[in-house]
């Protein structure tokens, strides 16, 4: 059973919420076809502004496609009612590039928030007072070398620690599809290796689908059996890593500054855009 099935999918920018130009000539994602089987692990690569984050948001039902077919666990979430769609969201986990952790929250609370879709509101309230399962939170943190930060406040963590704290939440979530947006942007090479290995082990252990967007092409090739390359909102290639050649990579990233209407760098004369607001979901 495929986790995701996308056919000729078009996704437009959501002007107000993403800060990207709305109604621009080019959609964020155009004519995108992609099938991802349950338990598959793939890396999304491509130049900045190619649409990796938009694709992950679409896969997370956080952005409605404009055209084409989109099914997730054999259901079209946008044909479902709102409540059913929201239940579907509990079966996936989206880890945005910027860790979504309130600065004044404690790490243990932030990590245990992974259980919120399953918890009743009373359970959630009680856990604010006394953390429901600190042991599990500690285990998840320890896998990213963060065990000693269990009771620290989030704003006392460094950027890299926050990023791993956000991923520790992923380990605790029972989701069947893990969507990770650039998990390595604040990590050194050693921690990058550890983080990718942990993510892959976790996904394999529970047969979850893992989609991970990466800027480090060498790491993507080393860790993921399937590589999906995006360029200007379209799939440049979708191949097993053995068939990806250095020429293809060079071609993917070449001519960076001259790419047509990238969402992150809009033409200044047509649309005034808030600077720095486009990158993350």
């Amino acid at each position, binding site marked *: 059973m495929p986790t995701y099935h996308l056919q000729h999918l078009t996704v437009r920018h959501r002007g107000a919420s993403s800060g990207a130009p709305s109604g621009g000539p080019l959609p964020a994602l155009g004519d995108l076809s992609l099938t991802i089987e349950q338990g598959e692990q793939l890396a999304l690569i491509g130049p900045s502004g190619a649409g990796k984050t938009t694709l992950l948001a679409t896969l997370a039902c*956080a952005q409605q496609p404009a055209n084409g077919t989109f099914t997730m666990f054999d259901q079209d979430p946008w044909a479902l009612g709102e409540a059913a769609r929201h239940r579907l969201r509990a079966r996936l986990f989206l880890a*945005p590039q910027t860790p979504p952790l309130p600065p004044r929250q404690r790490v243990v609370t932030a990590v245990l928030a992974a259980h919120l879709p399953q918890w009743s*509101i009373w359970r959630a309230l009680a856990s604010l007072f006394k953390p429901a399962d600190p042991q599990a939170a500690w285990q998840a943190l320890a896998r990213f070398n963060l065990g000693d930060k269990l009771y620290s406040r989030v704003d006392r963590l460094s950027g890299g620690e926050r990023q791993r704290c956000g991923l520790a939440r992923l380990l605790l979530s029972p989701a069947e599809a893990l969507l990770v947006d650039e998990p390595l942007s604040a990590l050194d090479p050693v921690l990058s290796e550890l983080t990718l290995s942990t993510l892959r082990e976790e996904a394999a252990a529970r047969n979850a689908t893992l989609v991970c967007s990466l800027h480090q092409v060498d790491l993507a090739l080393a860790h993921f059996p399937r590589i999906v390359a995006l360029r200007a909102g379209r799939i440049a290639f979708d191949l097993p890593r053995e068939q990806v050649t250095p020429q293809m990579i060079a071609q993917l990233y070449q001519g960076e500054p001259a790419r047509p209407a990238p969402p992150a760098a809009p033409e200044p004369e047509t649309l005034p855009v808030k600077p720095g607001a486009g990158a993350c979901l």
Partner: protein
Amino acid sequence: MHRPMSARSSTQLAAQSAARLAAQLPAHLHRDPAWRGRIMACLLTVFIVWPMLVLSEFKPWILWDWQSLSATGRFLSDFLVPAHDPEFLQLLLRETWQTVAIATAGLALAMVVAIPATLIITDRLSISALGTGRTRLPARLLRQGVRWLLIVLRSVPELVWALLFVRIIGFGPTAGVLAIALTYCGMLGKVYAEILESSDTHSTDTLLANGSSRLAALLYGALPESASELMSYTVYRWECAIRGSVVMGFVGAGGLGQRMDESMKMLAGAEVSSMLLVFVLLVALADLFSKILRRRLG
């Protein structure tokens, strides 16, 4: 010889023509055309304002006649030594306690209604907007309805509510509590929602995108983001409720205000002065409390 002659004659000509112009300024231009209008406006103002002053018994000079001066002087000099006999202090303590109770009970009641109202009217935390950017029509209507309700509640001043409740349920603190609850519910709901909307929504949005319920996303995303702002605004509103309950005491809604009204009417400056000191103390207390809370939460 010819040239300097003509130059001299031209300057002479200019001087002569200026003198002639000054002399020939027509008689009707001597009068400033705006002058008559201004005089008329002044007369009209006096004509309108004078009866108003008479009607409102505006007689500032009576402030300066001997009797008034001595009364004012006595009242103000009483302020220098606040009343402090044990009997009065006991009364003061009891009334202060009542004022604090009115403010606290009123604010607590206001929060009971304001918190659910906040959850309804805030634009964030919308699951239907997730991915589409649109909210459903019934949700929008409900949101707008609650917003209007809050506007009505807070646009009627607490003093007016208090007058109304004093008529309905009689003199006493209950009227004050209800008046504070109604007005402050409108204020708290509006400002809570605005604080939530102006805080960073990344964590809340991500929790919602991962399938959390609205309330859970509020508890784990929005509240930790803005807890200290919400807290400091609530404590400030408590301070306002103390002041409000004093004003409402003047119309018979209990507490220190009612005593102060009586003391004022008896021109007992010493008692008024003691009560003012208590207000200063209460407000300083609220300030300290808010500071401690913010340090704990911030």
